């Protein structure tokens, strides 16, 4: 679905990506994680053809992103973190913009709006940012695009809307679609994301499925601090400690994305070794 080969990009003298490679198959909700300034939004914009690479190639379903061809745009929906909507109602918006998407699902749109509790006949200029975001998420999911890029989709959503978002995404994802979600709000999307991609200093330092993660790493809750040499990572939590160790048992453990992220960013070499070793055996 997405092939990024030898991608290089920079803002002025600030190199963001250098020879970045990534390949994503359809059928998953890919979580794009990284610190501030790691290049998550830039990568999404490059995939959407809103930025052009200095070197390398980005293709979505075989189409070059920077050409912004009609077929490419019909296959891609991009939800930016900040956006502006025209002063129309959701129904008017649908009438004006849905004809551009051949796979648009009218019924799904209404269903998502109902789920998000967004009124179909209130002007978009008169609703809150969170409501606007839910409207745009509903529209994006209803377009039927094979690639949906979302930049911080849960920012501004209330607790029930976050749960509604997870349900909507999980119910609409089909085998030929891929959703890429760049976020800092990992707890909001813990049950949804698979695979996990972690960007750090312009490189992809981690790109694995949740199954692989739970098979190879073990996250435990301890009442006392573990010996540093015994763990890959540990930190104090309320009522004890959380630690990440290599999983030597055949039992898989549940994954806490925030802990995984901190562990990967702090132990890049060791984590790479573990996953390479496992992949080799």
């Amino acid at each position, binding site marked *: 679905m997405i092939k990024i080969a030898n991608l290089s990009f920079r803002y002025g003298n600030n190199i963001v990506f250098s020879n970045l490679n990534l390949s994503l198959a359809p059928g998953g909700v890919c979580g794009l994680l990284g610190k501030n300034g790691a290049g998550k939004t830039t990568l999404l*914009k490059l995939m*959407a053809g*809103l*930025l*052009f690479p200095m070197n390398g190639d980005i293709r979505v379903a075989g189409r070059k992103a920077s050409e*912004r*061809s*009609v*077929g490419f*745009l*019909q296959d*891609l*929906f*991009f939800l*930016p973190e*900040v*956006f*502006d*909507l*025209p*002063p*129309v109602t959701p129904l*008017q918006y649908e009438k*004006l*913009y849905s*004809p*551009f*998407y051949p796979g648009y699902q009218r019924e799904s749109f209404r269903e998502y709006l109902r789920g998000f509790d967004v009124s179909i006949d209130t002007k978009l200029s008169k609703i809150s940012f969170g409501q606007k975001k839910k409207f745009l998420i509903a529209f994006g999911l209803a377009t039927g695009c094979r690639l949906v890029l979302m930049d911080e989709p849960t920012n501004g959503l209330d607790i029930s809307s976050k749960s509604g978002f997870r349900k909507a995404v999980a119910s609409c994802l089909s085998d030929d679609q891929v959703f890429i979600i760049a976020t800092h709000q990992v707890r909001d999307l813990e049950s949804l994301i698979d695979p996990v991609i972690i960007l750090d200093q312009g490189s992809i330092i981690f790109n694995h499925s949740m199954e692989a993660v739970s098979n190879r790493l073990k996250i435990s809750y301890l009442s006392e601090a573990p010996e540093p040499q015994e763990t890959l990572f540990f930190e104090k939590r309320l009522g004890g400690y959380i630690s990440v160790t290599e999983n030597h048992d055949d039992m898989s453990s549940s994954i806490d994305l925030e802990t995984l992220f901190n562990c990967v960013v702090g132990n890049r070499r060791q984590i790479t070794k573990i996953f390479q070793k496992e992949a080799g055996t």
Partner: protein
Amino acid sequence: MKFDNTFNAKRFLQLIKNDLYNNRFFFFITATAALGILLLLFLYDSINPITSSTHIAVGFYGIFLGGLIITARLFGNLHDETKVVEWHMLPASLLEKFSSRLILSTIIYACGWYLFFFLLSLVSETLCQWLFGSSQQIFNPFNPEVLHATLLCWIYQSVLLCGVVYFRKHAVAKTVLVFVLYLLLLGFFGVIALNFLFGKYSSNIGFRVYFGVKVFSMGGHMSEGLKTFFQSDGAGSIISTANWLKHIYLVYIFMPACWVVGYFRLKEMEF
């Protein structure tokens, strides 16, 4: 199939419909302004009957100001990341997106404005005759002066389009500055050329810039021999050829060149 990827009439018409809908308040304000102007003319006419040239002037300034504003509205916000992502990510080719806005801001806006103005002047004429027994000249949109003024307006619009697409910040101010600079340079080289050609027979050849019906004009004191030459039939044909060349340059080269520059600037634009 390939052409459909570049230009599809259905998508093109939908884009025009979207822009018309999203700018409905602007069109409403323009129509209200036209109504207000006509009302003033109507009241003025009761005191002093107006001529057709007043209508042409009002029609021209309406299309001129409205045309520039709609061009700035449609193309001026393309550097605003929050507004532009939606437009750029809409599944239509850039040719469709660009040409739909270009046609809306030029042909459709002009036709709409003239039709509305014509209808209003018709109502105004009827009322004038009924109430005051006087007759206004009905606005004729097919008057050659109106068509000439429309072309001139489109030339200015093309400059503004190119400028607001090209410059990221303070686009309108920068466009005006560059355009004035361009006119001054053109005038400067025109004066040099005229001095080179007719310098022996004249004095004080200079130029004046103004933004009315003419872009700029040349002036100076000609010798009697040169005046006689310019009044002769041969000179008349030279002058009409020069005017024809100016027209060809502005309408068929300069204006499309501005559009093409704007189009390619949008094509390479990043956000």
